[in-house]
């Protein structure tokens, strides 16, 4: 390895992406993806030495230590880019100058991610690791195995599996020392978007964005639905959709739970219920017989704990929500529900009761939320939902609506006037065609 002779005197560095790719060949890379790649590239170094990296809000006025830009040709720093090929990127060594640590990528390159189309472009993650090595004080290495070798030698692999070569590890640790505790995370601010899903296996080459196991939002059957700080989160498998106060869906594609909610077990299959606790606004996640308590998006120490602490029988719950009418927490399982007092931390007497008390509401609910300024209650099951107006329990009979249409912005089902289509290859089977399937 070779050192530039410069290093940061502080150990907590800030960064942000100032300009994102604008060129035609990079239009498939959205800001969230770029943020994610930069995050993982910095994490490589942050995992090796006692440095932390905090992403600053793109709209904030704070000047970060490392500013990332996608530029082309002359861009006022003495290192003009030269179009596709040739020079790919550069970064400035640490220091007190405003440009110190700044990292520039040539927007005229075709940048690829996660080895998709690797033979048609340059892997952004690989180059970003290299450039951030400069931004932290490393110079070019003559070892071809080193990430700090000056020539691009193809993708280094997946962000979850890449490890620094000994040469690079020794170089960076020469500057900043070894990392004593593995617990110091590479942090992001609450205001930044969630990291997009990074698949564990390289995707097929033809696919630009891998979505092998993404659930279909139009099919309903959500595992959990929660009103958190006025936004509604729909959870399914290890993904979630987010609906803002205005009712707009943040993205048609789901986000990965573990990229936003930090601290749940890695191998969970589904979340059974989620609700925001009244009083302290902490968020409760329930998976089978256990629950986790979150402050904002990070789990608190000491969790998971057994769900039986609430006074519930073992076996988990289907749904949980705070009824705006009385501030009590309601847990549902099969055809029963329980009422819990968060202030007293005790289950109310006289429960469980039968779900049929909520007239028109089916058993085996997916989840329940209080929503809207009036605090109406929304019950979800399958692809339908029912509304009980504020405090009411008898207004939902025969009034179910479509989750897909009203919440997930899916096309309505074909009307009944459209006849089912008979499969010409089968004498007996009748097929129906759905806009969303």
């Amino acid at each position, binding site marked *: 390895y070779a050192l530039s002779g410069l290093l940061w005197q502080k150990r907590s560095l800030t960064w942000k992406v100032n300009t994102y790719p604008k060129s035609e060949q990079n239009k498939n890379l959205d800001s969230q993806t770029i943020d994610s790649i930069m995050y993982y590239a910095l994490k490589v170094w942050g995992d090796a030495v006692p440095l932390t990296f905090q992403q600053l809000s793109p709209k904030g006025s704070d000047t970060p230590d490392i500013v990332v830009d996608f530029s082309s040709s002359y861009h006022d720093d003495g290192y003009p880019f030269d179009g596709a090929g040739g*020079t*790919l*990127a550069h970064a400035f060594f640490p220091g007190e100058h405003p440009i110190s640590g700044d990292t520039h990528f040539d927007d005229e390159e075709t940048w690829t991610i996660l080895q998709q189309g690797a033979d048609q472009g340059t892997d952004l993650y690989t180059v970003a690791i290299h450039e951030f090595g400069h931004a932290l004080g490393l*110079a070019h290495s003559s070892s071809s195995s080193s990430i700090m070798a*000056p*020539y691009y030698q193809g993708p280094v692999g997946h962000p979850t599996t890449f490890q620094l070569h000994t040469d690079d590890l020794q170089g960076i640790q020469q500057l900043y020392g070894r990392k004593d505790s593995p617990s110091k995370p590479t942090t992001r601010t609450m205001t930044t978007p969630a990291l997009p899903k990074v698949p564990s296996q390289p995707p097929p080459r033809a696919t630009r964005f891998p979505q092998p196991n993404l659930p279909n939002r139009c099919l309903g059957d959500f595992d959990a639905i929660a009103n958190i700080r006025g936004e509604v989160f729909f959870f399914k498998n290890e993904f979630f959709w987010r609906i803002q106060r205005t009712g707009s869906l943040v993205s048609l594609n789901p986000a990965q739970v573990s990229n936003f909610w930090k601290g749940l077990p890695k191998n969970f299959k589904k979340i059974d219920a989620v609700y925001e606790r009244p009083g302290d606004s902490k968020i409760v996640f329930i998976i089978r017989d256990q629950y986790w308590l979150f402050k904002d998006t990070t789990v608190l120490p000491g969790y998971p704990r057994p769900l039986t602490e609430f006074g519930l029988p073992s076996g988990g719950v289907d749904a949980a929500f705070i009824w705006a009418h009385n501030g009590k927490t309601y847990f549902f399982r099969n055809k029963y529900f329980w009422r819990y007092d968060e202030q007293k931390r005790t289950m109310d007497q006289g429960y469980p009761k039968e779900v049929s008390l909520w007239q028109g509401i089916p058993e085996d609910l997916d989840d329940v939320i209080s929503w809207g300024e009036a605090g109406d209650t929304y019950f979800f099951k399958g692809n339908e939902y029912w509304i009980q107006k504020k405090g009411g329990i008898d207004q939902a009979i025969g009034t179910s609506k479509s989750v897909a249409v009203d919440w997930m912005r899916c096309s309505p089902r074909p009307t009944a006037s459209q006849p089912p289509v008979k499969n010409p290859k089968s004498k007996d089977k009748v097929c129906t065609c759905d806009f969303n399937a």
Partner: protein
Amino acid sequence: SARPRSVDVSKGVDWLTRYGYLPPPDPMTAQLQTREGIEEAIRTMQRFGGLKETGKLDAATLSLMQKPRCSLPDIIGTSELLRRRRRRRR
């Protein structure tokens, strides 16, 4: 064995200068970029890039020079060191 084309030599010298193997051209001390100086710079570049050290702009060397890469120089501070050396000599 053929002599490299003039255009390749010119591009090669530009490349060696850009990435720190040669000092920037200076009309006052042009003798620093002699044939020997360029050959030595090529050898250094070849060593750094894992090529056979021929000191010539051979096909492998020209090929490596065309590979996509980082803009920063491989040899940091060459020009600054040489400037200081020249100043001392004066």
